[in-house]
């Protein structure tokens, strides 16, 4: 068992602007290192102002906003249906989940009931997308720790999922598959068999992946006990999804605030157990994602078995118009955690306000606190373990 290398209590945050921090670093004699926005392991355009004394960091301050595309503002300018492709861009690694959150919010505004078959299609699509998102996350994390080989292994499996999703909706990254009131296309002919073939293959790959990297001694040594997040701290900092569950908090929107058809399927919510180090360390965050892929496979198998026949689209008006001031809120479990959409209806065909709440943004907040006293190599592993994705931070 490795000891925690940082006491997991909550330190006080100083509220200072980045400019002020820079000025202060100048006087300490420490080195200021700009990690990013073009650094290979910041997972997109994020900048970290790193105050270091040699290899040991005193602080790493995340600077976000390099990838801001005004997606929330665009939501006020386009129609409800027209906004759907934009939600893909909220988080292009898990575009299906981002689609679903928005679709659910607008469906609540309209009080539309989505047909059962459409809900199953949605679940199949989002769970496949969750696996592919976790594969990217795990592969890049292994690569940030220095092992290059797991990344192509993960991406090879992701290609199969991309093929499956392409067959479903014609796109491989930004799917735009979900519609308000259902899904765009029904499952194609023979899709269930293909899915089961993939799952049979993939469930054999998971142990191989674990042998290759998860239980690799150097990998465990690098991540065990690294930047542990206690359950209280995780809740204090609004961590969601696998990051929260790795700290031992058993909260999953799919279980605790059930939506879609999740009450009808059996699955476990894996939580971090501190198997090799401390509960909530970086290795737990890696392991929880590995386990979630297994659970997603379980859900997919049940979906394939239970999917009913019927329509995939509810009766929808051609133009969606609503009473001004109606508001709706939806929470879904994206692969990066609790993703929330808040939509206020406007006077015409547009929303008055669209607000997206994403897991990556809150995860960025904890990096400053966790990074104190770590090494530069640890910062890279920490960022990867929190699975932050730049577009989801900035929207």
């Amino acid at each position, binding site marked *: 068992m490795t000891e925690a290398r940082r006491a997991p209590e909550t330190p006080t945050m100083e509220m200072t602007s980045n400019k002020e921090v820079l000025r202060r670093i100048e006087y300490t004699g420490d*080195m200021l*290192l700009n990690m990013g926005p073009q*650094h*290979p*392991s910041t997972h997109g355009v994020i900048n970290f102002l790193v105050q270091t004394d*040699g*290899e040991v960091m005193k602080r790493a301050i995340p600077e976000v906003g390099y990838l801001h595309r005004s997606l929330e503002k665009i939501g006020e300018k386009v129609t409800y249906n027209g906004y759907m492709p934009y939600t893909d861009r909220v988080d292009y690694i898990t575009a299906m989940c981002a689609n679903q959150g928005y679709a659910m919010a607008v469906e609540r505004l309209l009080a539309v009931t989505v047909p059962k078959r459409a809900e199953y299609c949605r679940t199949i699509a989002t769970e496949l997308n969750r696996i592919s998102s976790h594969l990217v996350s795990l592969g890049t994390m*292994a*690569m*940030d*720790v*220095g*092992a*290059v*080989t797991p*990344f*192509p*292994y993960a991406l*090879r499996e992701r290609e199969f999922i991309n093929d499956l999703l392409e067959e479903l909706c014609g796109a491989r990254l930004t799917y735009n598959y979900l519609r308000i009131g259902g899904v765009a296309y029904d499952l194609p002919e023979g899709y269930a068999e293909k899915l089961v073939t993939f799952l049979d293959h993939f469930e*054999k*790959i998971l*142990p*191989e992946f674990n*042998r290759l*990297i998860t239980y*690799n001694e*150097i*990998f465990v*040594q*690098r991540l065990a006990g690294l930047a542990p997040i206690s359950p209280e701290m995780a809740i204090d900092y609004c961590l969601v999804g696998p990051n929260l569950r790795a700290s031992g908090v058993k909260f999953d929107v799919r279980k605790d605030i059930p939506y879609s058809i999740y009450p009808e399927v059996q699955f476990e919510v894996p939580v971090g157990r501190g198997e090799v180090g401390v509960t909530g360390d970086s290795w737990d965050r890696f392991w929880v994602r590995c386990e979630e892929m297994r659970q997603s496979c379980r859900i997919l198998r049940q979906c394939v078995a239970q999917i009913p026949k019927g329509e995939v689209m509810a009766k929808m008006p051609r133009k969606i118009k609503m009473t001004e001031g109606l508001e709706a809120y939806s929470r879904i479990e994206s692969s990066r955690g609790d993703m929330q959409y808040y939509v206020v209806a406007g006077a015409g065909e547009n929303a008055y306000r669209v607000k997206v709440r994403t897991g990556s943004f809150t995860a960025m907040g904890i990096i400053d606190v966790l990074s104190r006293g770590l*090494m*530069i*190599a*640890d910062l*890279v592993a920490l960022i990867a373990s929190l699975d932050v994705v730049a577009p989801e931070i900035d929207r």
Partner: protein
Amino acid sequence: MQGFLDNLIRHFGHDPATWPWTQFVYLGGMALFAFAVINFAAITAGIFSWAERRVAARMQSRVGPNRVGPGGFLQWVADAVKLLTKEDLVPAEADKILFRAAPYFMMVGFACVFVALPFSHRLVIADMNIGIFFIIAVTALIVVGIIMSGWSSNSKWSLFGAIRSAAQIISYEIPGGIALMIPVMLAGTLSTQGIIRAQGGLPWQWFVFDNPAAFVAFVIYFISALAEGNRTPFDLPEAESELVSGYNTEYSGMRFSYFFLVEWGNMWVMSALATTMFLGGWQIPGVSAATLDAATGGTAVALELLSLAIFVGKTLFWVFVVMWLRWTLPRIRVDQMMNMCWKYLVPMSFAAVAFVAVWMLVVHAVPALGLVMRAIMFVLGVAFTVFFVYRTAQNIRDTGDKFDFTSNW
């Protein structure tokens, strides 16, 4: 080399001791050998760059470079041409003299090693009586080049790489050097050819199976060599996910290619040294070194080529192992790297030296004990290999992978 040139002069009917042009012939010979050695080093490094990419591709279920030449074999030529024709960029804020000079330090430190490195029974540039000492000494020039490049680039990432590299290479030279002293003790000479002659052609005659401490020394040497060559899991100085590219971040074109030439060429050096010191070098199984010395004419040429093939074969195997490790293992952290060296490898290497010293006295008193130990070590080695193959086969069976070495060329 001198003997060869003396023979050449005698062949033309002069006495090398009195002939006035002898020194010029020596000078010409030196230039010729230096040219040959640098070219050998550069071409091996180039071929390794292709081989590494192919091996990596195979391990990662990719195809790898396969467009230029058969199986992409000429990829390294294309890369070299590209790098040569690129602009040689020197950052405005850099220390220009040091920045330009740094790659040559690395190149010199690397090329000098080949002077004392044997290739076959007769093929060695200079069989110096301090061969190993010379190799360890000139390798240290590489770290000078790395520190110079890191400092002069005037980039924070380069500086990080250089400082890491200085700490790493200097630390690991200690266990590595001490581990190399064990074959020296067993052979009683520092000469590389002398150490190979003290071993035999068959595995149980190699120093690695001589006693447990020698095996430990081999492992320590191999780990240290990986660290000195900046290979994964010790590629901290150029950790691309942490330090962008480490000490060579600011380099471009030809100077950049020197760094990589040294890195890939170093794989040959570390593997050839392991072969020389621990794995019997060019010794042919069943043919003693005395027989090789005595052979003349066609037999001598055939035996010479066979010894060359054996040496190159063993070396290439270890080169493959180095590549294999690189594409399998994650990178360790700086403090773990230091811990491993100072807390484990250094004490272990000292203990191994002490054990070997005592063991040599014991074997001197009871020679049969040495044979028994060699037999035991060899059987353990074979058992380990069998176990490894069994586990690999089992893993492959579990995953349901198929062997396919022929497609995608």
